[in-house]
């Protein structure tokens, strides 16, 4: 039964969704979601949903309570609990917010709508097949747990009527062994398009904690968005200073190396991984590289461009380079890439100044829908 309230409830949810979209920029900036996945619920504070009225501030009023205690005793819980606010004073806009649960999936969808990100058309011939079991058959043998009651009953009834043992006045139907039917499964092959994201990060001395945080948040959202479009998605992580190595996710985000920067080392490793594990006719490949743009030498930059042009770009859906601003870096690398590879379709370049820049940068990376 549908209740009348559901219209009002949906209306409320629309309003909340609208508010979330308005504040999406602020949510994206936050690093606290990045341990979440897919259908995980996350709680976002949605400001100013409640209808405003002139009312007393929660702090100044105080009240009357009942129980033991003498003057000066703290009363255990704070009475403004119901307002659901953090205990510290905070900025004014942070107060009066309603905590709303949304799934990451929904948030990613809103991100897509708000940034007007196009759907990604997976390439490849979908040659990778995945086997799935589907319960759609009926057998005469099987485990009792899978017994098909309706079919069994129907068979028993049919048999009793045809043999004349069915009595309408006493309609007891007793199935015998031959009447029993069981559900059974068949395996179905389902084509799937697969994707791999190869993250590369510069961890040379000039990349500070702040820069890494930017990379971490940005790669989280990119990951979330791409996951919406591919059933199976793999992630590979490469860190580099003057040398490149493949690491796991945790190390990727938390290592602090130091030393010089030879970007070509990472690109070479990336090209190797692609060549070895991900034949480009079957895989959608998304390499992302984040750096502060301070490469070792002009020669190395030239080498990088060479690797990209010949070994990476022809195989990938899109190669993305994000340059975070760092007080030490010269930021020359993005200019070099722009000069020599600008005409190439499969490359996306973006500069990320600070946390506010993440929003725009995501759009630059994912806006092409490749």
């Amino acid at each position, binding site marked *: *039964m549908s*209740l*009348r*309230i559901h*219209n*009002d*409830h*949906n*209306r*409320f*949810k*629309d*309003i909340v969704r609208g508010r979330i979209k308005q504040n999406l920029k602020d949510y994206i900036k936050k690093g606290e979601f990045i341990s979440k996945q897919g259908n995980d619920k996350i709680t976002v504070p949605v400001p*100013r*949903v*409640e*209808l*405003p*009225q*002139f*009312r*007393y*501030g*929660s*702090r*100044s*009023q*105080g*009240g*009357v*309570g*009942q*129980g*033991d*205690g*003498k*003057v*000066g*005793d*703290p*009363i*255990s*819980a*704070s*009475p403004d609990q119901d307002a659901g606010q953090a*205990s510290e004073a905070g900025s*004014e*806009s942070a*107060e*009066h917010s*309603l905590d709303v649960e949304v799934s990451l999936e929904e948030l990613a969808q809103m991100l897509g709508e708000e940034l007007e990100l196009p759907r990604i058309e997976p390439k490849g011939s979908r040659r990778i097949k995945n086997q799935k079991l589907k319960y759609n058959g009926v057998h005469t043998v099987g485990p009792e747990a899978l017994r098909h009651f309706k079919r069994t009953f129907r068979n028993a009834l049919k048999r009793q009527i045809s043999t004349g043992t069915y009595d309408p006045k006493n309609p007891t139907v007793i199935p015998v062994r031959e009447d029993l039917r069981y559900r059974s499964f068949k395996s179905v092959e389902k084509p799937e398009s697969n994707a791999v994201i190869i993250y590369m990060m510069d961890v040379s001395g000039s990349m500070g904690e702040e820069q890494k945080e930017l990379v971490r948040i940005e790669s989280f959202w990119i990951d979330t968005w791409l996951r919406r479009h591919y059933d199976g998605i793999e992630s590979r992580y490469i860190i580099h200073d003057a040398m490149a190595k493949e690491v796991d996710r945790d190390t990727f985000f938390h290592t602090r190396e130091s030393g010089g920067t030879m970007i070509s080392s990472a690109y070479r490793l990336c090209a190797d991984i692609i060549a070895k594990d991900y034949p480009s006719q079957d895989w959608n490949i998304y390499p992302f590289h984040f750096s502060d743009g301070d490469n070792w030498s002009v020669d190395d930059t030239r080498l990088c461009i060479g690797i990209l042009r010949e070994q990476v770009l022809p195989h990938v859906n899109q190669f993305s380079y994000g340059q975070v601003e760092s007080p030490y870096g010269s930021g020359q690398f993005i200019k070099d890439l722009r000069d020599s590879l600008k005409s190439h379709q499969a490359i996306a370049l973006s500069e990320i100044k600070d946390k506010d820049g993440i929003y725009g940068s995501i759009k630059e990376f994912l806006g092409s829908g490749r």
Partner: protein
Amino acid sequence: MPHQLSPELRQLQEKVEKAARDAGLDFFTTIYEVLDFDEINMVASYTGFPVRYPHWKWGMEYERLSKSFEYGLSRIYELVINNNPCYAYLLDSNSFVDQKLVMCHVTAHNDFFKNNFAFQHSNRRMIDEMANHASRIRRYMDWYGVEKVEGFIDSVLSIDNLIDCHTPYIVPSSQKESDEDDEKGSGDAKIGRLKTNREYMDRFVNPEEFLEAQRVENQKKAQEQKKFPKEPTRDVMAFILMHAPLSRWQKDVLEMLKDEAHYFAPQAMTKIMNEGWASYWHSRLMTHNIMEPNDVIDFADRHASVMATSRTQLNPYKLGLELYRDIEERWNKGQFGLEYDQCDDMAAKASWDKKLGLGRQKIFDVRKIYNDVTFIDEFFTLEFCKRQGFFSYGYDRKKQEFLIDSLEFIKVKKKLLNSLTNLSHPLISIVDANFENRSELLLEHFFEGVELDPVYTKETLRNLFKLWTRPTHLLTTFEERPMMVSFDGENYKEKMLSRQL
């Protein structure tokens, strides 16, 4: 949706109502409906009514109730509506003992609705009225668009606590006379003539030019004094309805919402009394008439959880119940009146018993002619306060937490009364609707030591602007200094004032 009451429950209703009637309760016919949790959440979101106008705020409330039910934080056992016949909803998953308790509770609420003076002007056909409002607003939505009507309702709901809850009880008689008085006041009589004993000197001492100048001066003054409204009015909703430039449908919507606000006001005015009364009677009827021996434990458990006190929040059920019991005892023993009050001997006072047996009659009288403020003011005594262990608390800015600030009876009682005044809403009135002679709206907050919430204040001024369509201002006190907050349609402005205007 309505489910037939099971024969078991119907029998129970008869039994409860007979016991209640025998005990002297006088109530409307009650119609019980049993609802499942989702339905009861819906009805509760609609503040107890099956049909309300479409608005997202019910959806918000529904979300909150459903969530807290889902997480096992709260459940609603019953809902009762002040209406004739009185409608009450029972949760279908209540145990049978719960249903017994709830029926006793509901019957006493019903008696309170019927007999307390605060409800004398209340619309006893509110279910129909609410449904009418809903269909009218739906029609406006069809005609003018959902967004537009809902947006307007949002603005109106922002001021729906700014009503004068006493308007229904005031007989408008003296108003007209005072108007006439004002007219007469500005006549010739006040023109200041210089004194002279000789009549023939008068035209030299007070020449015509001088008198004329005085007259002009007087007229000017009178003009200045012609304030609008003449006296500050607390009924902001009514004022906006009368004087704001609204279209017809907007006026209609505003008036409906004003009626609804007035309908709920008496319930807010008597929360402690009403819940206390219902708790007194459910306890009394259960223990004397209704309960079977095997219900005792469950009943005691349920009753105790309703009566739980908290250090941070006042429990109106508990406070009300204890006060009625205290009154009953005092009037039974004759612990009232001049002789008792003037007795200095504490021992004699404690064992004072004149065996008057007036208790029951007294509490029936009390439930008729008091509201929460007068109830607390009259019966919240020193002895009662000490016995129940009340204290008052406030926010300590240095320690950043709430501390007990007093155990003193006078302070506790003052805080309690303050928190009940004006239905716990700030006292705000319109002082000038032609502020600065630019038809801007000036409101004033009557400051009693508790500051307004700054964020909500601004948002409310914004919504008020939408109704009044001219800049809105509020005089209030912030951090112990008078301040004026303004909204001019685009920006907020805060101005510290050196003195109150």
